[in-house]
């Protein structure tokens, strides 16, 4: 069995209080005598995962979730407050915008310095210098101070150095977003080659497209805790769905079930699942059972709608559109069962919303909704899979 390249066990990080000098002094004293400081803000809590050689792991999460702190712990810039980190590879290279670059010095000086940080000796740098400069492709700018560089040029230089080192573990923090189109392509090609040759990568990105393209696993960090860890498609889809739901929540609170309405919803069941969330794959059947209550013996109408988790409507249909009548079940109850034999929704988070309407189909009396997630390894774009075929010209 191969050993993991990197192994985090219950790593937590608290930033000690550093605002006023009294707190700093107390922390200093505690660190000096006891080796740890008390109090502070928790940034990471109980993170455990292994990276095996050849794995590609993405770390995703919203701003302030602790991604960069986690990278700092992994690269050894920061010591975890509790927990352990074990590293078996020789070189871990962090690629971050301008990391380790001193703006006062020329690109060439910074290149040499960065290469030394990554473990190259002077002779090795001299041997690879031409390759590095060719990869960076910034011309005579290498002889100018880095403070005159654009952010794209800084990333080019940084990436070129890392590419020449071929580290055991490559760690990238949002670098690809900066370079221009052609350099991005060059970097992605290089990363793909590096991964194909058995390289290991850890990547922080907000671009789910890049994450799905380059990584096989993903770790979703939320407020310093691991929210989900596993296959990249499952994790990124749940992450995106979570974001869409959050956006929708921000837009405005939804109406809940209304007990005073004349035509009420007693219950809604999605598939066999009575619980809160349902997972299904693209193209799976979906069955909805809705129980309604009517006070006057007349059959109410039912309206169903599917919306994307961010609130974008996808499809809606009502019983009176198709001239269907709910089925009476006694005690003023009515039942409707709606079945989608092959639900063509693309992976993501969705909400199924059902409304009870008066028998005339004019007034919405009661609403119920339930969210479900569609999973799959598809990278198609949009909401639904349209039937399509590719033809030869």
């Amino acid at each position, binding site marked *: 069995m191969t050993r993991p390249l990197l192994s985090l066990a219950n790593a937590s990080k608290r930033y000690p209080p550093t605002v006023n000098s009294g707190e700093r002094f107390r922390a200093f004293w505690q660190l000096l005598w006891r080796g740890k400081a008390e109090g502070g803000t928790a940034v990471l809590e109980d993170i455990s995962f292994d990276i095996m050689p050849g794995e590609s792991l993405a770390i995703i999460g919203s701003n302030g979730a602790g991604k960069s702190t986690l990278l700092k712990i992994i690269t050894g810039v920061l010591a975890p407050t509790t927990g352990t980190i074990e590293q078996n590879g020789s070189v871990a290279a962090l690629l*971050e915008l301008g990391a380790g670059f001193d703006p006062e010095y020329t690109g060439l*000086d910074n290149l040499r310095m960065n290469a030394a940080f990554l473990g190259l*000796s002077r002779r090795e740098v001299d041997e690879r210098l031409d390759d590095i400069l060719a990869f960076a492709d910034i011309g005579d700018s290498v002889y100018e101070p880095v403070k005159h560089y654009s952010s794209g040029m800084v990333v080019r230089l940084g990436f070129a150095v890392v590419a020449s080192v071929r580290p055991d573990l490559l760690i990238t923090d949002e670098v690809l977003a900066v370079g221009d189109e052609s350099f991005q392509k060059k970097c992605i090609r290089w990363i793909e080659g590096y991964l194909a040759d058995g390289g290991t990568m850890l990547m922080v990105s907000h671009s789910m497209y890049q994450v799905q393209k380059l990584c096989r696993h993903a770790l979703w960090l939320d407020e310093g805790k691991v929210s989900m860890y596993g296959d990249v498609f499952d994790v990124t889809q749940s992450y995106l769905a979570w974001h869409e739901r959050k956006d929708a929540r921000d837009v405005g609170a939804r109406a809940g079930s209304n007990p005073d309405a004349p035509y009420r919803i007693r219950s809604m069941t999605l598939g066999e699942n009575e619980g809160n969330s349902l997972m299904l794959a693209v193209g799976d059947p979906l069955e909805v059972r809705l129980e309604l209550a009517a006070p006057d013996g007349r059959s109410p109408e039912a309206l169903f709608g599917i919306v994307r988790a961010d609130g974008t409507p996808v499809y809606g249909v009502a019983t009176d559109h198709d001239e269907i009548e709910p089925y009476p079940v006694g005690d003023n109850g009515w039942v409707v069962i709606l079945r989608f034999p092959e639900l063509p929704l693309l992976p993501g988070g969705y909400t199924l919303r059902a409304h009870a309407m008066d028998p005339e189909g004019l007034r919405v009396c009661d609403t119920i909704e339930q969210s479900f997630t569609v999973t799959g390894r598809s990278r198609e774009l949009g909401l639904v899979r349209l039937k399509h075929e590719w033809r030869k010209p």
Partner: protein
Amino acid sequence: MSRSTLATFVLLLQRDVRARFIGSASGWIWLILNPLLLLAVYSFVFGVIFQARVPPGLEMPFVAWLAVALWPWLMFSEGVLKGSQSIREHAALISKVSLPRELLVFASVSAVFLLHLAGYLAVFLVLVVLGIDLHWAGLPRLLLALVSLFVLTSGLALGLSAIQVYVRDLEQALPTVMMFWFFLTPILYAPSLLPSDLGAWLDLNPLTWWMAEIRGGILHAESLPGWPALAMLLGSLAVAWAGHRIFRRLSPYFEDFL
């Protein structure tokens, strides 16, 4: 020390040395010119205005006697000051790159020693040209004293640089402390010029020992190091050990406080 660590150290050292001259048109000339101008100023103030005299038994201008001890002091005080600032100065690097952080302090102290060593050489050259009677047989003793001075300076700089990350006040206090220390060390005066009950107190200042050692060999023709040289070496090693322990203890948390 692996080859890449060595490469990092050399690059950091080059950077520190060059940082002194960046922006000045003919930087390397100042390296020699500065100490000589400084020497001229001291020679005017103490030789001409104060009419300072060398201790009895020596036949040389006061400025020669002063210069031999002044440069090691400059190495020490500037090494401690610059070295203890080096961690805060490289905050950007420390929060991004994982490297042996001691290197930053060592590079900074080494740069100071190298630069002042160049000045020291220039001073000796001038003294030789002026025909001052120097005892070259004492040179090994002088060099040994400089080595232990480097160890002492590095140790102090390591400890202080780590503490300074947490206790910022140190940055304000250190230059004043160094100034005070300068006048408590027999550099501008000989210990023999003090009343004898004060002279005994002077020995509590470790730098007194270094000054005696440095002048003893090259000026007083006492070319063999005695037990004080050994004591200084052991003492400075002890300081370096303590400084390194403090540094090791505090360095994992630098990033939190920088």
